[in-house]
C-alpha cells in the first residue's frame, strides 16, 4: 500500500495495482486512480510548473477544472498529447506521463528565475517594452517570449487513432449525473420518454462519490446510487460516462465528446479513441453542479495547497490522504467537513482557520470533539516550502486590523472560498445571469433555449436540495413535453449543506503590492495584477481579463473568474454586475481536434465524387485532377508520355478522327413547368421563347451585378421542359440561385427545379468521325445535317439505352453529348469505345478539353472570367437578349462603369517569340515604366500543346476589342515578352468543321 493510501476508503480497486511512469520513474497506483490521485498516494504533490513564473505546482483540484497539474501523456508512437489534466487522466498499466514547462527538471527549473523578477513581469509588461531597437522584436524578443511561453510540447507525429461522429435525438438530455441529474432522470423516466444522462467522470454519482456519509431514503449514498443506476437502466435511461457536454448550440443542439479508450491499457480493435455526439434534445436539464473557489492569499499556489473539497474527493473517492498534517483555511462550512473526514481517516489536522468570526456551533463542537484547534477571524498571509508547502502563516483579524502572524506547520493547506455554480453551458445558450449578493455569485436567469438548470448550478447547496430540485425540474420538463412524470420523494440524512462568505484577496499585514496571491494559477495572475490593470484604466472585466490573462488558462476561468471579478470590482469600487462577467465559450473542457474532425480525415475529409466512368479511366491509366469535390480524368498518358505529350496526342487525335470524353460532372438542372420558358427568360441573358423543342442554345447566366456567373448549353426538350447544363463547379450554386429567385422573387411562376447532375452519365464524342461512329448505335434520329443539325437535342436510344442526345461541340469539331441514366454510363462508354476502334478513338481528359476549347475561343467561366467580366467584355454581347424586358443582371449591366470605355476585354494573344505565356501573368502597354506599373490585364488561359502549331493564349486586356493587332508586353521576373492582340478564335473561324459531311 502506498504511503498515503487509506485502507477501506475510496472506490479504487485495491486488488488491482497498476503501474505507470512519471518523468521516467515508475509508480504504483490502483485501478480507478487518476494520475493525480495515484501520485498523491505516493506523496507526490509537485506535478508541474506555472506558465509565466515557472513556479512549482501541484494539483489544486480533483476534476476537470484543474489548472496546475498538467502533464504530457503517451501511449507509444504517435499517441502523445500535451496539457492533459492529471486529475482526469485515469491510469493504466504502461501509461507514460511527463511533466511540462520545465528545464532541466521539474525540481530544478531555470525558468523559475522569472519568479525572482516577478515585479518586472507584472500584468501587461510586454506592452510597455521590447520595442527598441525595432528589429529586435522579430529577431530577439519574440522568439524568446515564445520559447518561454506555451505549456507542453505539440505532438509531432501523425495520430494513428480514429475518431467517430454520431447523431442522437432524445426527449430529454441531462448534463451531469450527480444527485440533481439522477433525480431529474428518475422523474422523467416513464411514459416512454427517451432520456439520456451524460457525465464527464468515469462513473455516475457526482458529489455523492465524494460524500459517502450521506443517507438517502435510509440507504448509504453509494448503495442508493448503485440501486438508482440499476433502476434507471431498467427504465431505459441511457447513462453515458466519460462524456463531456462540450457546447450548447442553436435549437437545443448539444455537442458531447465521449472518451472511449484513453483509460484502457489495451486498445480494442476497430474502436475510436473518442466519439463526438451531436445531440438534438427536445428538452435539456443542466445539472453541472458547482465548483469550489480558492482563497486568494500570498503563497496560495504552493504544491500541497489545495481545495478542501478536492482533498475530500481524494480521500473518499480514491482513498488518498493528501496530507497527514493538513491545515484548513476556509470561509465556508464545507471545508470543516473536509477536516473531519481527513481527521477520521487518520490525519492530524493542525487547525481549522476560518476567516469568519462566527461559525455554526455544531461544527465547532465537532472540531472540539476531534481535538482540532479552531481559529476564527483569521487570515492567511503566507506559506513556506519550496517544492511542497511546509507551513501556513496566519494572523488574527479584528475589524480592519490584521494582527501579528504566526506559522502553523503543515504538509497540506486545504482551502475553500465557497462555491460557484457551473453556468458554462447555460452561458453558451446566451442565457442571462443575475448577480446574487447573498451567495456572491452569478445565478442563471433566462435562456432562449428549451432548457432548465437545476441543483447546485443554480445555487442550491446540499444533496437534499439537489435531489428535490432535480426531481422538480425533471417533472417540469416532462410536463412541457406533454407526458406524465414519476413522482419520487427523497429523505436525506447527514447532509452537509453549509454556508459561507466570499472574499476578495484575504487581508494581510504585509505589503499587498508584493504578495503572490494567485487568482489564475496557470497563467500566474495575482490579485495585484488585477489591481494594476484597473489602475491602468481597464474598467471592464473583458479588459481586465485580456490585460492580465486571468481566466484565459486551460481551465477557462473555472477557478479564477469569480475571484478575479470580486477583486476587480473592489478595485473599481463597483458592484460585480457593473463590472460584468466574461462570456463562457465552448468547449466546456479542452476537446481533441480529432474528435471534431471525426471521420473527416484523409480520403474522407471531403467525399470524392466519381463518375460512373471513373473506374474505366483508372483502369486505363488516367491521371486525375480535383475539380471541386469531383475527381476528373486530367489526361491519359501512354507509357513514356508526360502530360504535354499525352495532351498533344489527345488533341491531335480528336481533331483528326474522334475523341471520347467523360462530361458527366457537368451540372444538370431540369427546369419544368408551364412557366419554364418565362423562368428561363428571366434567369438567363438569352431569349428562350423562340427556341423550338428539339433545339439547344448556349446560355449565359449573370449575377445581379451584371457579371458572368455561369454558362452551359441548354436544350429545350418540349414546350415546358428544359435540360439545363451548368459548369461542373457551378452546379449547386446555380441551383441555389435559381431556387432563391423562384422562391423569393417569382413565387408566381409555375416551375419545378430538379438537380439531375447525378442522374445522367454524359459522354462527349468529338471529331470528324463522331457522327459516323455514333450513327449505327442510335435509334430514333438520323445524324445528318438536315435531320439533326448542330445545336439539336432529342430523346432517343443509343446502344440500346434510353438517351438524351445533344449535338453540341466544345472543341470545334462535330460533337455529340450522349446522356444516359447514370448507372449505364460505363456500359455506354464501352459500347462507344468498341465501336470507335475502327476510327482509332482516343480518350481525352480535361486538359485536352481545355486546349481544344481555347483554340476555338470558348471561355471557361472562372478561368477566363473572374466575377468582374460582363458578356460584352467576354465578346459575347450576342448572347444578351436585347429585346427582353428583364433578366437577372440586366440593371447591373446598365451601370455606368459596366458600359464605360476602357473595360478589360477578352482577346487572344500570340507571343512574338512563340514562347508560352504563364497563366496569371500581368500585361502592360508600356514596358519601360517603373514599378508600380500600370497593369492593363492578365493572361487567363495559355497552351502550347494544341493543334494550331504555336502557343496560344487568351487574356483580358483593357480596351482589347479595339486593339486587335497591337503589341502588349508581359513583364516576367527575368524578361519581358511581347505579344500581339488577336481575335479569340485560333482555329477554324468559319466553323466549317462543325458540319457533318463538310468533307474536312
Amino acid at each position, binding site marked *: 500500500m502506498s504511503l498515503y493510501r487509506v485502507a477501506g476508503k475510496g472506490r479504487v480497486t485495491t486488488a488491482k495495482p497498476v503501474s505507470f511512469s512519471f518523468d521516467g520513474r515508475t509508480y504504483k497506483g490502483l485501478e480507478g486512480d487518476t494520475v493525480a490521485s495515484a501520485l498523491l498516494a505516493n506523496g507526490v504533490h509537485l506535478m508541474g510548473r506555472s*506558465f509565466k513564473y515557472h513556479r512549482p505546482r501541484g494539483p489544486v483540484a480533483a476534476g476537470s477544472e484543474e489548472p496546475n497539474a498538467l502533464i504530457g501523456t503517451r501511449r507509444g508512437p504517435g499517441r502523445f*498529447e500535451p*496539457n492533459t489534466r492529471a486529475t482526469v487522466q485515469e491510469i493504466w498499466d504502461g501509461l507514460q506521463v511527463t511533466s511540462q514547462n520545465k528545464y532541466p527538471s521539474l525540481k530544478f527549473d531555470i525558468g523559475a528565475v522569472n519568479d525572482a523578477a516577478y*515585479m518586472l513581469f507584472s500584468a501587461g509588461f510586454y*506592452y*510597455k*517594452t521590447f*520595442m*527598441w531597437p*525595432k528589429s529586435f*522584436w*522579430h529577431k530577439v524578443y*519574440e*522568439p524568446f*517570449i*515564445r*520559447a518561454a*511561453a*506555451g*505549456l507542453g510540447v*505539440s*505532438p509531432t507525429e501523425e495520430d494513428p487513432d480514429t475518431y467517430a461522429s454520431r447523431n442522437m435525438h432524445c426527449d430529454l438530455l441531462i448534463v451531469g449525473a450527480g444527485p440533481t441529474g439522477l433525480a431529474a432522470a428518475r422523474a422523467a423516466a416513464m411514459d416512454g420518454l427517451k432520456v439520456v444522462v451524460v457525465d464527464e467522470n468515469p462513473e455516475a454519482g457526482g458529489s455523492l462519490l465524494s460524500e459517502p456519509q450521506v443517507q438517502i431514503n435510509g440507504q448509504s449514498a453509494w448503495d442508493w446510487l448503485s440501486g438508482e443506476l440499476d433502476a434507471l437502466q431498467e427504465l431505459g435511461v441511457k447513462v453515458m460516462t466519460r462524456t463531456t457536454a462540450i*457546447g450548447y448550440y*442553436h435549437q437545443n443542439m448539444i455537442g458531447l465528446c465521449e472518451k472511449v479508450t484513453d483509460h484502457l491499457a489495451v486498445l480494442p480493435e476497430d474502436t475510436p479513441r473518442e466519439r463526438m455526439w451531436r445531440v438534438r434534445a427536445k428538452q435539456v436539464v443542466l445539472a453541472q453542479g458547482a465548483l469550489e473557489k480558492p482563497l486568494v492569499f500570498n503563497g496560495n499556489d504552493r504544491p500541497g495547497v489545495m481545495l478542501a473539497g478536492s482533498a475530500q474527493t481524494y480521500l473518499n473517492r480514491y482513498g488518498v490522504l493528501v496530507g497527514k498534517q493538513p491545515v484548513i483555511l476556509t470561509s465556508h462550512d464545507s471545508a470543516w467537513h473536509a477536516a473531519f473526514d481527513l481527521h477520521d481517516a487518520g490525519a492530524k489536522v493542525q487547525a481549522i482557520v476560518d476567516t469568519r468570526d462566527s461559525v455554526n456551533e455544531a461544527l465547532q463542537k465537532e472540531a472540539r470533539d476531534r481535538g482540532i484547534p479552531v481559529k476564527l477571524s483569521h487570515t492567511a498571509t503566507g506559506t513556506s516550502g519550496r517544492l511542497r508547502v511546509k507551513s501556513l502563516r496566519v494572523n488574527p483579524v479584528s475589524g480592519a486590523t490584521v494582527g501579528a502572524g504566526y506559522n502553523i506547520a503543515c504538509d497540506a493547506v486545504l482551502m475553500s472560498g465557497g462555491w460557484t455554480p457551473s453556468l458554462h453551458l447555460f452561458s453558451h445558450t446566451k442565457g442571462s445571469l443575475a448577480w446574487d449578493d447573498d451567495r456572491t455569485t452569478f445565478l442563471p436567469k433566462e435562456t432562449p433555449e428549451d432548457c432548465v438548470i437545476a441543483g447546485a448550478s443554480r445555487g442550491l447547496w446540499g444533496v437534499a436540495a439537489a435531489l428535490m430540485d432535480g426531481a422538480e425540474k425533471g417533472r417540469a420538463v416532462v410536463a412541457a413535453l406533454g407526458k406524465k412524470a414519476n413522482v419520487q420523494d427523497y429523505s436525506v440524512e447527514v447532509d452537509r449543506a453549509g454556508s459561507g462568505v466570499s472574499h476578495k484577496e484575504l487581508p494581510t499585514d504585509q505589503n499587498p*503590492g508584493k504578495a503572490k496571491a494567485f487568482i489564475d494559477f496557470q497563467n500566474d495572475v495575482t490579485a*495585484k495584477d488585477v489591481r494594476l490593470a484597473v*489602475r*491602468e*484604466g*481597464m474598467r*471592464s472585466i473583458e*479588459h481586465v481579463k*485580456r490585460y492580465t*490573462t486571468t481566466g484565459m488558462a*486551460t481551465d477557462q476561468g473555472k477557478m479564477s473568474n469569480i475571484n478575479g471579478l470580486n477583486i476587480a470590482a473592489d478595485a473599481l469600487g463597483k458592484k460585480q454586475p457593473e463590472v460584468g462577467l466574461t462570456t463562457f*465559450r465552448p*468547449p466546456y473542457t479542452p*476537446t*481533441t*481536434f480529432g474528435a*471534431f*474532425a471525426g471521420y*473527416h480525415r484523409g480520403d474522407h*475529409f471531403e467525399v*470524392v465524387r466519381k463518375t460512373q466512368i471513373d473506374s474505366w479511366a483508372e483502369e486505363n491509366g488516367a491521371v486525375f*485532377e480535383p475539380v471541386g469535390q469531383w475527381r476528373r480524368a486530367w489526361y491519359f498518358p501512354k507509357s513514356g508520355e508526360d502530360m504535354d505529350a499525352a495532351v498533344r496526342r489527345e488533341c491531335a487525335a480528336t481533331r483528326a478522327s474522334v475523341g471520347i470524353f467523360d462530361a458527366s460532372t457537368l451540372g444538370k438542372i431540369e427546369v419544368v413547368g408551364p412557366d419554364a420558358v418565362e423562368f428561363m427568360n428571366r434567369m438567363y441573358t438569352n431569349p428562350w421563347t423562340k427556341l423550338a423543342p428539339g433545339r439547344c442554345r448556349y446560355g449565359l447566366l449573370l449575377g445581379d451585378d451584371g*457579371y458572368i456567373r455561369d454558362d452551359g448549353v441548354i436544350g429545350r426538350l418540349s414546350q415546358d421542359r428544359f435540360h439545363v447544363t451548368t459548369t461542373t463547379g457551378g452546379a449547386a450554386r446555380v441551383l441555389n440561385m435559381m431556387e432563391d429567385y423562384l422562391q423569393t422573387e417569382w413565387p408566381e411562376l409555375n416551375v419545378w427545379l430538379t438537380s439531375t447532375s447525378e442522374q445522367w452519365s454524359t459522354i462527349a464524342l468529338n471529331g470528324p468521325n463522331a457522327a459516323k461512329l455514333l450513327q449505327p448505335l442510335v435509334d430514333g434520329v438520323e445524324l445528318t445535317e438536315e435531320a439533326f443539325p448542330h445545336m439539336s437535342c432529342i430523346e432517343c436510344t443509343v446502344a440500346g439505352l434510353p438517351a438524351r442526345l445533344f449535338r453540341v461541340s466544345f472543341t470545334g469539331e462535330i460533337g455529340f453529348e450522349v446522356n444516359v441514366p447514370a448507372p449505364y454510363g460505363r456500359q455506354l462508354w464501352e459500347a462507344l469505345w468498341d465501336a470507335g476502334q475502327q476510327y482509332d478513338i482516343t480518350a481525352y481528359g480535361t486538359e485536352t478539353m481545355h486546349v481544344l476549347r481555347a483554340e476555338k475561343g470558348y471561355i471557361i467561366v472562372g*478561368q477566363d472570367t473572374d*466575377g*468582374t467580366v460582363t458578356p460584352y467584355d467576354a465578346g459575347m454581347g450576342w448572347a444578351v437578349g436585347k429585346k427582353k424586358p428583364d433578366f437577372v443582371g440586366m440593371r*447591373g449591366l446598365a*451601370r*455606368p*462603369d*459596366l458600359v464605360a470605355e476602357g473595360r478589360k476585354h477578352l482577346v487572344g494573344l500570340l507571343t512574338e517569340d512563340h514562347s508560352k505565356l504563364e497563366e*496569371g501573368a*500581368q500585361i502592360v502597354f508600356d514596358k519601360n515604366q517603373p*514599378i508600380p506599373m500600370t*497593369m492593363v490585364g492578365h493572361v487567363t488561359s495559355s497552351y502550347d500543346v494544341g493543334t494550331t502549331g504555336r502557343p496560344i493564349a487568351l487574356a483580358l486586356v483593357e480596351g482589347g476589342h479595339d486593339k486587335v493587332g497591337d503589341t502588349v508586353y508581359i513583364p516576367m*521576373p527575368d524578361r519581358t515578352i511581347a505579344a500581339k492582340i488577336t481575335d479569340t478564335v485560333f482555329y477554324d473561324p468559319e466553323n466549317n468543321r462543325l458540319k457533318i459531311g463538310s468533307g474536312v
Partner: protein
Amino acid sequence: MTRFNAFSLLKNALSGNKNWTEQWPEVEPKSSYDVIIVGAGGHGLGAAYYLAKEHGITNVAVIDKGWLGGGNTGRNTTIIRSNYLYDESARLYDHAVDLWEDLSQDLNYNVMYSRRGVLMLAHNVHDVQSFKRHIHANRLNGVDNRWLTPEECKEYCPPLSISKNARYPVMGGALQERAGTARHDAVAWGYARGAAMRGVDIIQNCPVTAIRRNADGSVAGVETAKGFIKANKVGVSAAGHTSVVMQTADVRLPLESYPLQALVSEPVKPIFPCVVMSNAVHAYISQSDKGELVIGSGTDQYTSYSQRGGLPLIEHTVAAITEIFPIFNRMRMLRKWGGIVDVTPDRSAIISKTPVDGLYVNCGWGTGGFKATPGSAHTFAWTIAKNEPHPINAPFTMERFRTGRLIDEAAAAAVAH
C-alpha cells in the same frame, strides 16, 4: 501619462507598480466636439489618433456602446498581409503594412507586429492560376509575394503535410514574408492611449441611438444614451452595426452581416512558425506568442447577428486543419467564439464621404478588417479632416455600387481576406 520603456518598467517595478497611471481616462462627454467617431474599435480609435496626431484636430470623441476594442478588433485571428490582387486593395493594405511596421514605436505601445510570413496554399489548378496571377500583379505593384513549391512550403512551415495522397494535395503556395500577425487588443489599447494622450475623449458604454441632421441636411451631432452631443463631423466606424447607425441619418448601406468563428488550441511550445491560409479547405492558422494555435474558419452560410456560431462549421474547419497538419490531431481546442462581420457586395471596404454633409463612413471590412487597421484609420482620418478622400481610399466609395466600379477581390480569386 507615463512613457513606456524598459526604464519606466524597471522604475515602476521597484516601486511596486503603484505609480502607473490610466492609459486612457474615464470621461463624461462634453456638449460638443469638432469630430465624433462612432465605434471604439481599432479603426475608430486609430482614426481619432491620426486626426489628433496628423491633422491637429484634438477636440474629438470616440463613442462606443460597449467597451473599447470589444468588437471584431478583439475577436479576430490577427492576420496581417497585403498581397491583394487589385491595385486599389494592394495600395490600401500595403499602406497599412507600412504603418504596422512602425506602429509600436509610433504609439509607444508594443502591438507585437510579427513579420512571420503568410503562406497561402494552392490545392488545385485553379488555385495555382489564381495565386500566380496575384504574384505577378504584386510584383509589378512592388508588393512582396512569391511562389513556393510544395517542398519549399514544407521547409517554410515544417508541420505542413505535402503528401501526394492527401484529399487536396498541396500544389504550391504564395508567400508574403512581410506579412504576419499582431496582438489585437494592444492595437485598440495603444490607439486609445495615444489618442487620449493627445486630448481625445473616449466614451465607453454609451450607445449612439441616432445621428441628428440640421435643416440643411448636414450633420448636427449624435443622440446618445448620455444625451445629445453636437459635432459638425461624424465618422461612423461601427462594423456590423454601421448600417443601423447610418439608417438613422437616412443613409442606406449595402451591408450584410454574417457570423464568423475562430478558435484557439491549448498553448504549446513553439511549433508553428508562420501563418498558413488555405482557401480550398477553408481554414487558416498561426500560433500566438502565448503558444495557442489560432485558427479561423469561414463565415457561416446565413446572415445573422448571433455571436454563437454552429458546430458543423467548426467541425469542418478543424478537419481542414488536421488534414493539412495531421500532427495536430491530438491537440485540443481550448475556446471558440464568434464575431459578426459586415460584408459588402464586392467584399471590399467602404471608407468614404456620404451623401450627408459632415457624415463619413468606414465599414464593410468583412473578414479582413484587422490587417487594414492602421491604413484604414489613417485614410479615414484624412477623409474626415480634409473632407475629401486620401488618394489611397478614393476608390473605396459608397458610390461604386451604383456605378459598378467594384473592387471584387473575392470574385477575382475566391480568396477570403
